[in-house]
C-alpha cells in the first residue's frame, strides 16, 4: 500500500498501467477462485467437534463407529411447507399439519395398527388383537392387553406397558390438547344419565411390565376401541420423563434426538431447508414379510433381532400379494421447496424421486408429467368426499321434499363428465367407492332420478315438491333438451310459507377449488329453475368454515359446499348427522339433522364389536340419509401422484394414495441408483 501510495503517480503515468491493474486483479481473482474450489482432502480436516448440532443421541451414532452395515442410497422427497416441529407430543397437540406428520420420525408405537393397502386392522406392539373387554358390573369395562416382550426403543430401553401408562398420564396430567384428547379420551363418571358424565378412559395401568389394563366407562365398540384408544400413540418414558413437567416444557423439547421404534432416526434437521433420516444400523425394526389379501393380512417377522411374529388377521383366503419391508435406502431426504410449482419443477429436473402432496398433482400438470420419460403416474381415489349441506334448521332446508327435489334435479354426472371432463368421480353415499364392503346400495330419490334427462329431472322434482305439499301459482315447464326450465312462480312451502329471497349457496372460490365452484353454479341454477331465489356465492374457505361451524351462527346460512377427509374406520356418518353432535352445541352436525331412528342406529354402530355388524348398521344409516338428504354428496376427487421410474413401491393402488397412507413409504421403497 505504501509503495503504491508513494509511487502511485509514477505507476499511473506508466504507459499501460490500466492493463497492468486489470491483469493483476484478474490474477488475484483467479487465485481466489482456485482456492475456493478446494479439494476434498482439505475439506475433511479440522472439524470443530464442539460446534456439533443436533446429532441424535441414538444408536445411529454408535453404528457409525462400527463397520457400516446397512442399505445405501438416498430416497429424496419434496415437501413444500416447513414442518412445525420434530416433537411428537407437540405434533399431536396443536401442530397437526400434514407436513409435520410426513417428516416426523417413528417416535411412537401403538397397540394396534392398520395394514395398507387393504386397511386391515393388525397388531402393533400388542401380542394379540384383544377385541373383547371384561364387564366389571359397575358401569365400567376393562381391556387387558398383553404387549409383546422384547421390543426396544432405538436408545436400547425396553418397550413396556409402563411407556403407555406414562404417555396416558402425561397427556392427562399436562392437559395436552387436540389429538391427545381423541387418542386418550378422559372419562368421567359411570352413570351415563348423570350430569357431568363423559365417555372415556377411567384408568390406564400396567398390571405387569408387559400388560396394560384399560378401564372405560362405556362398552366400547370398534370405533372407540380398535380404531381409537388401541391405536393411541405410545412414547418412551425413558427419554420423555425428563421433559414431562409441564405442557410448555414438554412441547418445547426438540424431539430430534428422541428414541424411535423405527429403522430410521433423524440425521440432519436443517430448518427451512431439508430434513434427513438415516438408517440405524442397530435397529431391530426392519424386515418382515406382509401378505395382503382382500380382507385380511398375514405378518411374518423374524429378523433375529426383534421378537419373532407370525400372525394372521381377517380373512386370509383368496388372491394375495406379499412385500418384504426394508429399509432399502440408507437415507431419506425431505427437501423443502417454496411452493408446489417449484417442487414439481425440481421433480422434473430429477432432484427428487417423489413429491409429498396431500392433494395430489393438479390434473393438467399430471397429464403433462405423464408424457415425461422416466416418470410413472398413479391415480387413486381419495378417502374423502365433497358435499353440499342443507341447513335443516331453517326453511326451505328444513323440508325433506325440498331437499329431495334439489337432489333429483341436480345432474351431477352431467357436470362431472361434460363440464369438468371427468376429473372427479360421482359419489352418492357417505362411503368412498374403494371401501366396497361398506358402500350401501343407492336408494330413494337418487336412485329414482338416476339416468333421467334434464326435462325428466325437472318434472320429477316438481312431482316431489307437489307430493310434499308445496304449492305454486304456476308450476312452470321444461321444453326438453338443453333448454332451461320455465321456473314455477309463486311457489310456497307445505305450510304456505314463502321461501326467502336471495338465498346463498356458499362454495369455495375457483382459485381454491374450481370443481366445487363450478358445481355450485350449476346447482344454484337448478334451484332457480325450481322457483327458488338461490345464488352461488364462491367465497373464502375460512369464511365458510367460520360461518357453518360456529355455534352462534348455526342458523345463519342455507346451503354450503365443503369436503371431508375421512379416517381408516368409516364411522363418520355418526359424527356428521347424530343429533347429539349438532353444531349449535359445538359438534360436526352442521345441517342440524335430527332423526331418532338414525341416532339409535348410530349408538348401535358405535358399540358394534365386529366389522360385519358395523357394516350392516352403517348401511341402514345410509338408507335413512338417502331418504332424508341432509347432505347432497357430490363427488370424490382422485389423488394423482407421480414418481420417478427408478423408484419401486410394493404397491401403488391404495385408497388415498401413497402420500395419504404412507407418506411415501420410506421403509418399503426401493430406489435404483
Amino acid at each position, binding site marked *: *500500500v505504501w509503495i*503504491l*501510495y508513494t509511487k*502511485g*503517480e509514477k*505507476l*499511473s503515468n506508466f504507459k499501460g498501467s490500466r492493463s497492468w491493474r486489470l491483469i*493483476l*486483479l484478474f490474477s*488475484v*481473482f483467479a*487465485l*481466489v477462485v482456485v*482456492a*475456493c474450489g*478446494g479439494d476434498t482432502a*482439505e475439506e475433511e480436516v*479440522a*472439524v*470443530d467437534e464442539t460446534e*456439533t*448440532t443436533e446429532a441424535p443421541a441414538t444408536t445411529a451414532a454408535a453404528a457409525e463407529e462400527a463397520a457400516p452395515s446397512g442399505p445405501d442410497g*438416498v430416497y429424496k422427497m419434496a415437501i413444500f411447507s416447513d414442518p*412445525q*416441529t420434530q416433537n411428537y407430543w*407437540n405434533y399431536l*397437540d*396443536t*401442530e*397437526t399439519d400434514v407436513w409435520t406428520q410426513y417428516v416426523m420420525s417413528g417416535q411412537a408405537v401403538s397397540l394396534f395398527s392398520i395394514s395398507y393397502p387393504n386397511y386391515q386392522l393388525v397388531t402393533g406392539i400388542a401380542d394379540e388383537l384383544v377385541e373383547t373387554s371384561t364387564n366389571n358390573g359397575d358401569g365400567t369395562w376393562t381391556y387387558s392387553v398383553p404387549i409383546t416382550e422384547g421390543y426396544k426403543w432405538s436408545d436400547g430401553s425396553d418397550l413396556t406397558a409402563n411407556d403407555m401408562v406414562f404417555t396416558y398420564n402425561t397427556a392427562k396430567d399436562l392437559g395436552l*390438547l*387436540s*389429538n391427545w*384428547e381423541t387418542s386418550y*379420551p378422559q372419562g368421567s363418571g359411570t352413570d351415563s344419565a348423570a350430569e357431568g358424565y363423559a365417555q372415556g378412559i377411567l384408568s390406564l395401568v400396567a398390571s405387569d411390565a408387559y400388560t396394560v389394563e384399560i378401564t372405560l366407562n362405556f362398552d366400547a365398540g370398534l370405533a372407540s376401541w380398535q380404531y381409537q384408544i388401541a391405536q393411541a400413540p405410545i412414547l418412551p418414558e425413558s427419554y420423555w420423563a425428563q421433559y414431562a413437567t409441564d405442557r410448555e416444557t414438554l*412441547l*418445547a423439547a426438540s424431539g430430534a434426538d428422541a428414541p424411535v421404534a423405527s429403522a430410521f432416526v433423524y440425521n440432519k*434437521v*436443517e*430448518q*427451512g431447508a*431439508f430434513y*434427513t433420516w*438415516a438408517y440405524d444400523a442397530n435397529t431391530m425394526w426392519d424386515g418382515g414379510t406382509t401378505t395382503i389379501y382382500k380382507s385380511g393380512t398375514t405378518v411374518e417377522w423374524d429378523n433375529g433381532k426383534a421378537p419373532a411374529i407370525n400372525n394372521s388377521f381377517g380373512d386370509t383366503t383368496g388372491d394375495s400379494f406379499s412385500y418384504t419391508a426394508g429399509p432399502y435406502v440408507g*437415507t431419506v*431426504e425431505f*427437501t423443502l*421447496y*417454496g411452493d408446489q410449482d*417449484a417442487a414439481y*419443477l*425440481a421433480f422434473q429436473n430429477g432432484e427428487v424421486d417423489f413429491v409429498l402432496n396431500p392433494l395430489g398433482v393438479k390434473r393438467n400438470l399430471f397429464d403433462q408429467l405423464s408424457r415425461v420419460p422416466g416418470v410413472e403416474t398413479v391415480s387413486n381415489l381419495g378417502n374423502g368426499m365433497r358435499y353440499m349441506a342443507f341447513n335443516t334448521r331453517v326453511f326451505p332446508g328444513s323440508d325433506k321434499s325440498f331437499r329431495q327435489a334439489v337432489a333429483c334435479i341436480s345432474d351431477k354426472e352431467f357436470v362431472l363428465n361434460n363440464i369438468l371432463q371427468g376429473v372427479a368421480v360421482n359419489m352418492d353415499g357417505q362411503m368412498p367407492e374403494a371401501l366396497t364392503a361398506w358402500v350401501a346400495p343407492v336408494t330413494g330419490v337418487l336412485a329414482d332420478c338416476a339416468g333421467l334427462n334434464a326435462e325428466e329431472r325437472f318434472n320429477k322434482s316438481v312431482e316431489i315438491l307437489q307430493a310434499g305439499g308445496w304449492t305454486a301459482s304456476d308450476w312452470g315447464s321444461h321444453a326438453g333438451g338443453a333448454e332451461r326450465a320455465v321456473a314455477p312462480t309463486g311457489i310456497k312451502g307445505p305450510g304456505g310459507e314463502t321461501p326467502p329471497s336471495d338465498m346463498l349457496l356458499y362454495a369455495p372460490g375457483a382459485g381454491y377449488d374450481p370443481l366445487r365452484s363450478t358445481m355450485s353454479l350449476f346447482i344454484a341454477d337448478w334451484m332457480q329453475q325450481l322457483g327458488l331465489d338461490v345464488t352461488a356465492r364462491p367465497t*373464502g374457505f*375460512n369464511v365458510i*368454515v*367460520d360461518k357453518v*361451524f360456529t355455534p352462534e351462527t348455526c342458523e345463519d346460512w342455507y346451503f354450503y359446499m365443503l369436503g371431508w377427509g375421512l*379416517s381408516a374406520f368409516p364411522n363418520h356418518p355418526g*359424527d356428521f348427522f347424530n343429533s347429539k353432535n349438532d353444531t349449535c*352445541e359445538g359438534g360436526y352436525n352442521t345441517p342440524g339433522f335430527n332423526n331418532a331412528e338414525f341416532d339409535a342406529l348410530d349408538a348401535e354402530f358405535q358399540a358394534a364389536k365386529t366389522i360385519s355388524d358395523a357394516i350392516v348398521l352403517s348401511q341402514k344409516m345410509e338408507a335413512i340419509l338417502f331418504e332424508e338428504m341432509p347432505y347432497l354428496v357430490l363427488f370424490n376427487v382422485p389423488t394423482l401422484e407421480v414418481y420417478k421410474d427408478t423408484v419401486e413401491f410394493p404397491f401403488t393402488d391404495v385408497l388415498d394414495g401413497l402420500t395419504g397412507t404412507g407418506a411415501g413409504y420410506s421403509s418399503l421403497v426401493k430406489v435404483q441408483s
Partner: protein
Amino acid sequence: MIAVFFVFLVSSYLLFNAIPGNAFSNLLLNPTLPPDAYEQVLATYGLDKPLFERLQLYVVNFFKGDFGYSYKYYPKTPIELIAERLPRTLMLFSIVNIVAFYTGFFIGKVLAWRRGSKSETWITITSVFSYTVFYPWFALMMLWFFGYKMGWFPIGKFLYPEKWYDAPFDSDVIFAMMIKFVLVISLIQFAAYTATRGIESLSSRRNIRFASLIAIFIGSYFYWNTGEALARKPYAADIAYHMILPVLVVTIVAFAGTALLTRTTMMEVLKKTIYSQQEQRELVKKE
C-alpha cells in the same frame, strides 16, 4: 408520532382479527376430535377472550416487549422464530443490496459520461425495463431459463442437502461466518474509500483503492484456506453458489433505480460545472 404508531398498532391488530377463522380453524375439520376440544384450544391460547380484552393485552404486552408465543410454532416466541431465519435473510439481502447499489452506481456513472451515445440509449431502455418489469414473473422466467433450461443454477433452496448430510454444524453457523466476512471486507473497502477522499491526486487515490481491493482478495484467500474456515469453505461455497441467481435477479430489478438516480445527479453536477466555467469566462471578459 406516538399517536400514529398507536393507531397503526391497533388497526393492524383489528385488521388481522377481521380475517375469517383463526390459527386453529383447521381443527374444526377433524371430526374425530371431541366437540369441546376446539373450545379448549381457544381457551388455552386466550382466543376465547372478548376482542377488547385481547386488544388491550396485545397493546400492553407489545410495549413490554412481550410478543407472546407463535400459534403455529408453539412454544417458540416470534423473536426466536425471527432469530432462526435472520442469518440467511441478512446474508442474502446484504449481498443483494451491496451488489445492486454498486451496479446501479457504476452504470449510472457510465450513463452520465456517455450521454448522447447509443450505449446510453440501450442501457436506459434496459434500466427502465428492469425498473418496471413485474418482479414475480421475471423471477420465474429467470428460474426457468437459468435453473431449468440451462441448468446453470439451482431451482430452489439455499444449499444442496446431500453436501450437508455429514456437516457437523448447521447452516446458520456458516451464514454467521459469511456475514462476518462480508462485513469485514465491506468495512475495509469503505475505509479505503473514506481515507483516500482527501488525496488530491486521482491516480494515487485510484491506486490505493485498487490496492485495498488486492489486499481483500489476498486476505480472503488466506482466510478461507486456513484454520476453521478451511473446513467450512465447501459449505460456504455451496451457499454462495445458491445465492448467485437470487442476487442476479434482485440486482437486475433493483439496480435501475440507483442507476437512473446517479445519472440524473451526475448530469446536474456536470451542468453546474459548465455553468460555473461559463460564468468564470464571462467574469474574465468583463474584467
